[in-house]
């Protein structure tokens, strides 16, 4: 089983230095979420709201919900991903400047 990163551990993960882009393919929104703007390779940026504790972060590159959760090492079964009031599926694409909430579903009691 792959090691887990709890929701509360995400801060340090998200503040980590971005990995090198040298292996990323160029193109109009490739599988890494990049796209071309006037010949430059620009990474898409998704703003995410995290909880426990509540905080906002920007994440570069994910093009689908599944990729976003993989990037953050979050188990999909433990969260809902919400855009506005809409639940997102793991296969849903994330667009530039999307704002999504990753809401933990685990509660005690």
């Amino acid at each position, binding site marked *: *089983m*792959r090691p*887990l990163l*709890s929701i*509360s551990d995400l801060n340090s993960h998200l503040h980590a230095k971005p990995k090198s882009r040298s292996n990323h393919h160029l193109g109009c929104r490739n599988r890494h979420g990049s796209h071309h703007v006037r010949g430059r390779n620009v990474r898409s940026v998704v703003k995410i709201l995290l*909880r*426990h504790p*509540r905080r906002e972060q920007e994440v570069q590159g994910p093009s689908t919900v599944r990729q976003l959760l993989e990037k953050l090492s979050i*188990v*999909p*079964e*433990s*969260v*809902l991903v*919400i855009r506005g*009031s*809409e*639940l997102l*599926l*793991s*296969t849903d694409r994330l667009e530039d400047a999307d704002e999504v909430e990753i*809401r*933990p*579903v*685990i*509660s*005690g*009691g």
Partner: protein
Amino acid sequence: MRCRVCRGRAAIEVRRHNAAFCGDHFVEHIQRQVQKTIDDLKMFQPTDRALLGVSGGKDSLALWDILTDLGYQVDGVNLELGIGTYSADSTNYSKDFADRRGLTLHEVDLESDYGFTIPMAADTSSRTPCSACGLSKRYVLNAIARRRGYNVLVMGHNLDDEAATLFSNVTNWNLDYLARQQPVLDETETGLARKVKPLIRVAERETAAYAVIRGIDYEIDECPMASGNTVNRIKEQLNAIEQTSPGMKQRFLFGFLERGAPVFREGRRPELTACTVCESPTTGDVCAFCKLQQRASGRSKQAQENA
């Protein structure tokens, strides 16, 4: 991904059922799962006087919504635990839900009614905050149900809650707890109300999705005293297994309930007597809640009543 029923755009995938649903059909699916649980396990009838423990979280509010939609007359009871703004906010979510739907919510304040809060209990006893909280909820909700004439106490424990509790009980081989872990506990002559858990077929992620789809405002923040507790960590691990083996949690719990629980129940029916302080059923002289209350509040319930 398309809804299994109408082929419209799906809002949620339920991998353990190999299905996806749009919002409307997901609501129908969840309500059908709860109805099936109530019917199969003969939990209660629409004519019963049912009291639901309402915390202000997703599970209890979703369950209240489901039950009223299915035609059951269910009142709620909220226990103010005294955990700072978290408890105050949770109580407000419960009250708002009840007010908007014209439902009856009984409110109990642990501090003013019983002389202590959960932080006080955690400070003065060897119990963890979650243990003190669980004990207090079990005791107070049962007391309110009995006092107000309800014949069934409904709890919002979901599939993940029960699977994680089972995992913990198995890890510790706690045979008494394993014998008592059932979705229906009958009323006893010694003073325990009938207790039922209609959400055991519904995963935690599904109750949260149900609340979002139905527009139910609930307490999203985590209890500050429960952060990193054992059950929550077990849930994370079970979810990681579920991710690669969809349906594992359900097979684990329902396999136990159908084939394991009867074995553990065999020959394990503890003799209950009346607590010498409050007369609630207990296996000792003084029940666990009265011991907790005495330590936390520094005075016995008897002393309060005599005052």
